[in-house]
């Protein structure tokens, strides 16, 4: 993937990621998050992970964000009114987040491995749906089954939680 495409998608992703937390309106935040995830899916595909990229669009843009928007619509959350902000907490949080970022960047800049480019693949065509599937159903079969049970439990839990009154 050419460099400028990487920076284009990374820029789109970061800008809309920042908009998620800057926007006052929850719906605008959610729509920005969708664009952010689409940029992320493009970055996955730039790393030859087509399956993960498509799954990202299918699960996040298709299912998770629709769920978010549906809930926002159901609760009828309009733009939140301006409250008196707790400036001490705000500055504290900001300082913590920035120092975390500085720390991450410092670690990356000192790692020798991070300065290397990606090695070329053995063949340009990777059938990665097949490869991920073989690994998933072979070596990781037990975790896969456990994930299935987890989703079942989550489904039951959601239904119980959203019932109006419990008997």
């Amino acid at each position, binding site marked *: 993937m050419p460099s400028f495409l990487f920076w284009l998608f*990374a820029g789109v992703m970061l800008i809309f990621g920042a908009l998620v*937390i800057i926007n006052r309106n929850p719906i605008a935040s959610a729509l920005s998050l969708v664009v952010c995830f689409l940029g992320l899916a493009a*970055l996955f595909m730039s*790393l030859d992970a087509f399956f*993960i990229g498509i799954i990202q669009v299918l699960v996040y843009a298709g299912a998770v964000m629709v769920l978010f928007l549906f809930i926002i619509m159901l609760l009828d959350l309009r733009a939140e009114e301006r409250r008196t902000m707790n400036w001490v907490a705000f500055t504290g949080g900001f300082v913590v987040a920035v120092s975390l970022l500085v720390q991450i960047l410092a670690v990356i800049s000192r790692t020798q491995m991070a300065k290397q*480019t*990606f090695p070329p*693949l053995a063949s340009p065509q990777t059938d990665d749906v097949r490869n991920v599937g073989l690994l998933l159903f072979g070596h990781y079969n037990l975790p896969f089954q456990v994930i299935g049970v987890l989703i079942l439990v989550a489904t039951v839990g*959601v239904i119980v939680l*959203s019932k109006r009154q419990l008997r």
Partner: protein
Amino acid sequence: MTTLGDYLTVSGILFAVGFSGVLLRRNVIIIFMALELMLNAANLSLVAFSRFRLGEDGLPSYNAQVLVFFIITVAAAEVAVGLAIIVALYRARRTTHVEDINSLKF
């Protein structure tokens, strides 16, 4: 050419953005979205590592991609349960603002 460091930097910035969202915002739903951002930042660095360290056959190491698959699945389940809790909370307290939810505060 893009290096591994570029991807890790982007992933790190995305994580920091999500982290600051959790710390700075007071709306539960926005905090939840910021959590998703952090999860996805982790996914990005996992996929970058999977592409960086090739296996013996010259293909990406798919273990990391399976892990990303699991993270996405668990995140989807987590979103469903979390939003159900938010709806239940809204029914009980008529608010999604974390500062109004202070019954357990001593």
